[in-house]
């Protein structure tokens, strides 16, 4: 197992804020909109340097999506910011018609995704957003795994023409990816090469997968770990290549197992390479109030759950 270490913990939303600031410096067409959550979305640096390119829309997410779609017509590259719940479910029809169907170059940037939003509870913890967004034709769906990857992803989507959903989170987590990485949309990142099982993880679950990989190594299991940051378009080639070698797969996501990364992987494998698969994901449930760590543990999204799923899926190999 390749050794990953970290010297600091940071939130992925701060990676978004830093990436937005950089993208703003590189391209004067980058504009930002926010629905009364500037501090939570870490947009302060962008707003300080480019006040005329920032639009505060107030608590009116539907209007924000429509305004963003309209701004693309003048050549702008709008980044909208609010919590994941209010970025997707609340404005699904606005995104569907004014952004996706109209093929507008809007970047829907969603913080506080998943259970790790914590104490605010289930009204704010969306576990269905990946499913909602990946079903929209033409929508790119990205869920980066740490501060550096989120920053790089934010800069990369500014250069991509078309609608994008970028999902990130609230808590501080280890920073373990390369600060100077080149982010390629739709390209998986090989975290660790192995032979016994393929662990496919996205978002906050990537560090948990690394922790699981270390525990598995102690048990004599050589896990291949792949980071799928882009859930759509999925890197079919990387997944198939790995699964051909290992013969079984565990998918890990901070999302409902219905509609998430795991189902995308299952769809691919069912049609191309039927393979035993286990899902580390929430099980058709809403969240609740608690600390992020308590919630990840209660809802089965810890390293220990990945280890158990790996042991189970290896047992299912023919």
């Amino acid at each position, binding site marked *: 197992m390749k050794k990953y270490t970290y010297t600091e913990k940071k939130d992925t939303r701060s990676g978004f804020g830093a990436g937005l600031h950089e993208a703003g410096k590189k391209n004067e067409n980058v504009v930002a909109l926010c629905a009364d959550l500037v501090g939570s979305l870490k947009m302060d640096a962008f707003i300080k340097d480019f006040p005329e390119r920032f639009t505060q829309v107030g608590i009116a997410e539907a209007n924000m999506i429509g305004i963003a779609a309209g701004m693309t017509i003048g*050549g702008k590259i709008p980044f909208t910011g609010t919590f994941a719940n209010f970025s997707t479910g609340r404005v699904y029809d*606005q995104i569907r*018609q004014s952004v996706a169907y109209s093929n507008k170059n809007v970047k829907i940037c969603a913080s506080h995704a998943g259970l790790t939003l914590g104490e605010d509870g289930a009204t704010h913890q969306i576990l269905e957003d990946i499913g909602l967004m990946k079903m929209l034709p033409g929508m790119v769906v990205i869920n980066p795994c740490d501060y550096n990857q989120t920053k790089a992803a934010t800069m990369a989507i500014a250069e991509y023409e078309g609608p994008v959903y970028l999902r990130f989170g609230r808590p501080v987590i280890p920073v373990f990816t390369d600060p100077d990485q080149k982010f390629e949309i739709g390209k998986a990142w090989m975290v660790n090469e192995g032979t016994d099982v393929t662990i496919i993880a996205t978002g906050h679950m990537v560090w948990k997968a690394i922790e699981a990989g270390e525990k598995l190594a102690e048990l004599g299991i050589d896990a291949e770990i792949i980071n799928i940051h882009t859930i759509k378009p999925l890197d079919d080639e990387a997944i198939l290549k790995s699964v051909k070698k290992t013969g079984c797969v565990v998918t890990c996501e901070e999302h409902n197992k219905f509609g998430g990364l795991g189902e995308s992987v299952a769809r691919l494998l069912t049609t191309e390479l039927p393979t035993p698969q286990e899902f580390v994901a929430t099980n058709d449930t809403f969240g609740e109030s608690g600390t992020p760590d308590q919630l990840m543990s209660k809802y089965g999204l810890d390293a220990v759950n990945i280890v158990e799923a790996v042991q189970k899926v290896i047992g299912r190999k023919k």
Partner: protein
Amino acid sequence: MKHTIKELEDIASQIRRDIVRMVHGCQSGHPGASLGCADFFTALYFEVLNHKTDFTMEGAGEDLFFLSNGHISPVWYSTLAHAGYFDKSELATFRKLDSRLQGHPTTHEHLPGIRIASGSLGQGLSVAIGAALAKKLNGDKSLIFALLGDGELQEGQNWEAAMFAPFNKVDHLIASVDYNGQQIDGPTSKVLALDDLQAKFEAFGWHVINTDGNDMKAIVEGLHYAKTLTGKGKPILNLMSTQMGAGVDYMMGTHKWHGTAPNDEQLAAALAQLPETLGDY
């Protein structure tokens, strides 16, 4: 004036013929409010709008128009064709398989003149505001026009947009409301009353004007007047009274022709009232 009022009325007559023929041709679509807005569209595209027919999405240096109540697509398609955006023969494909003239307007098939999809109601004003903000950032002094249905003002997003535009001094935006007082299930006064729209928009900070949307002279003058009000710190709302079905006697004064196509006999009766002025497609 680029045209006389009589010339504009003749164009509107041809557009009305196209509308009933298009809706008859596919036995679906929305003739009522399309007919009611034929005068507005004619005034806008042939007299008021500073636009180019060699279409670009960005429309730099041009006035832009957004239709929020997308179901009145027949009037827009016919207007765009006669204004020169595409050949009028294409009107015959309305709502048919593989057509660029979808039931509701869309950019998906790349029809010149369309800059956003509409159909699901209540979204157009926000989009128009966004386009207006981009114009401002680009230093482009052109205007943004929008048309909203009255019934769709029941959608909450309109009021988010209505609150945003005056607060942010989006003063190069002229939104018109097709105030025909009818919607699918009956008169708006019975479904969900709009009441005093002028007072409502004024309370939000808009400069509201009233026009008769079925009097060509009044609508041309009203839109020209609205242009003189731009750049003064407030968005402009043109509260435009129209008659659903205007120009076809049996379709007027009722919601029943909101989304119903005429049969052969009804088509003939309608066309008998609408002189062919520019040649049918």
